[in-house]
């Protein structure tokens, strides 16, 4: 990102830089053909794979969850080991809403987003204590563990280790019943994911998103340029929490069940793995990673039902040892070579 000029309006700057910044922003926010293709393929999967809708819903939810993590890791440089806290909170809030308030899915979604966002706002300041990755890892992990313990102890509310029983979700918009084959569920997940993706894309391509990248690359320099580092990080953390909460709520609403599992450590670890499989910092990483993760999981479970985690760990190990940036650069390098040969 060294060649990027930031769109902070400085009065003393010549107008040329401002124009260049505006053009750069516009170029970033323009929709590329590959992106349209991706979403067309996603929409086509709904019609072409009717017997896989359950699996596809899971992928959409996992992808949305990983997308929320990408916002803070890929764009703000905040490493989190406890993103599952927001996912789990959203899942429980959606479940409790359906039992105690209303079975309307969109209301559950909104309340879950609200609760997760509030938790993000409350715990976000802890991240700013000391900008050391270790403290951030421990604080996020601590919050997630705290929430897991709370859900475990508050059995009168959450059902404890037995899980939350009796989640009933009313038909979507009063018309589409959630069926056994997950058809409504997949359409619902896909549309929600798509809408949130568009919002997230708008956010990261805005001047605000650029300022986040500046903070990620060099917080000290960003601050001296006049970017308010603390509030910006807090905002993206809360926004990411909202999306994670919605992903959790989607899981509850499509499976009609919540258990302590949604808050377990492996959720937070899995979603990191998903994001790394897909690539960090370009929003599609989470979605592509979710597809790769579920396919790998399917394949490994078929090979060794109990021990698929071992092979998943090995894949992750190899990715890290080879180097993520080198793998990320691979498709581009191949593309460049093809173009060169085409020209020659």
């Amino acid at each position, binding site marked *: 990102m060294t060649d990027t000029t930031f769109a902070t309006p400085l009065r003393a700057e010549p107008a040329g830089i401002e124009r260049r910044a505006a053009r750069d922003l516009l170029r970033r926010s323009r929709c590329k053909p590959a992106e349209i293709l991706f979403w067309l393929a996603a929409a086509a999967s709904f019609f072409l794979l009717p017997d896989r809708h359950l699996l596809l819903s899971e992928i959409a939810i996992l992808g949305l969850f990983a997308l929320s993590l990408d916002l803070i890791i890929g764009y703000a440089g905040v*490493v989190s080991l406890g993103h599952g806290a927001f996912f789990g909170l959203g899942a429980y809030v959606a479940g409790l809403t359906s039992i105690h308030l209303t079975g309307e899915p969109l209301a559950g979604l909104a309340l879950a987003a609200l609760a997760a966002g509030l938790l993000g706002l409350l715990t976000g300041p802890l991240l700013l*204590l000391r900008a050391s990755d270790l403290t951030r890892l421990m604080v996020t992990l601590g*919050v997630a*563990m705290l929430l897991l313990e709370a859900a475990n102890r508050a059995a009168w509310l959450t059902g404890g280790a037995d899980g939350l029983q009796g989640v009933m979700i009313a038909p979507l918009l009063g018309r589409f019943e959630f069926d056994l084959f997950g058809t409504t569920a997949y359409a619902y997940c896909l549309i929600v994911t798509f809408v949130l993706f568009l919002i997230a894309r708008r956010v990261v391509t805005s001047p605000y998103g650029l300022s986040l990248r500046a903070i990620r690359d060099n917080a000290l320099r960003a601050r001296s340029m006049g970017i308010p580092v603390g509030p910006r990080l807090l905002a993206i953390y809360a926004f990411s929490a909202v999306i994670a909460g919605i992903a959790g709520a989607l899981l509850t609403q499509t499976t009609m069940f919540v258990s302590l599992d949604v808050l377990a*450590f492996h959720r937070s670890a899995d979603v990191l793995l998903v994001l790394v499989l897909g690539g960090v910092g370009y929003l599609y990483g989470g979605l592509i990673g979710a597809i790769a993760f579920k396919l790998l999981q399917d394949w490994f479970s078929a090979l060794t039902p*109990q*021990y698929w985690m071992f092979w998943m*760990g090995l894949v992750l190990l190899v*990715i890290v*040892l080879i180097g993520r940036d080198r793998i990320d650069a691979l498709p581009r390098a191949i593309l460049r070579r093809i173009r060169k040969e085409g020209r020659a």
Partner: protein
Amino acid sequence: MSTILIDGIAYGMLLFVMASGLAVTLGLMNFVNLAHGAFAMIGGYVTALAMNRLGVPFLLTLPLAFLVPALIGAVAERTLYARLYRRSHLDQVLFSIALVFMAMTAADWLLGSSQMLITLPGWLQGRFEIAGIGVGRYRAFLIVLCAVLVVALQLVLARTRFGARLRAAVDDQRAARGLGINVGGIFAATFAVGSGLAGLGGALGIEIMGLDPTFPLKIMVYVLIVVTIGGTASLTGPFLAALIIGTADVAGKYYIPELGAFLIYLLMIVLLILRPQGLIAPAR
């Protein structure tokens, strides 16, 4: 009351022995190693298997529980960890999480998912009384053994040539290298000793914390808490933190069992808010 205090201290000492290696890895090499608990698990399994399958007496298994993880640690450091020292923390976290998952599944596959049990020798069972306070024999043994280890570690760090080199490498890697200190070798040796100590801690902890394939994850949190709260500037910080966490955990589980592990996480977050640099902050 005093019994709980003594149990807490024994537990805290044990946590410190396990965490000391991580404190050095984090402080020295700035490497976030979430897989430290895996070495503790290896040590535990060495002791459990040597006792149950080969009939080796408990005390004799302890050196083994140190040596085997230390050896594995040395090999892993040279082949895997050394490549990642300069990478981002995210890469290190991913790498060590992958190791944890692989270690857990491998243990499950090789040895089964059930709890490992050992029978302590007769002279370590039961309890005795000092001035009207009931003290478990094993707890007393733990306190004495770990205290010896703590003193020995402190002496090695403060008094020996190796300790001086290690401290030099902590303060300024480049300058240390310029003085002709073999920083890579020191890293490897320190990593091996740290892994060995974790293994020893795992072996000593079977009786208190249990041992099954999920052990690395369970202990990871505790060990990381100890190091984060203690700070990585010295070993005194983690030692204090281990005692606080150990006592708080035992007392919390005894007096307010409804809270469970809640107390520990709350304590960690509060301590981090109060002292974000750790209990004993670096002098820089």
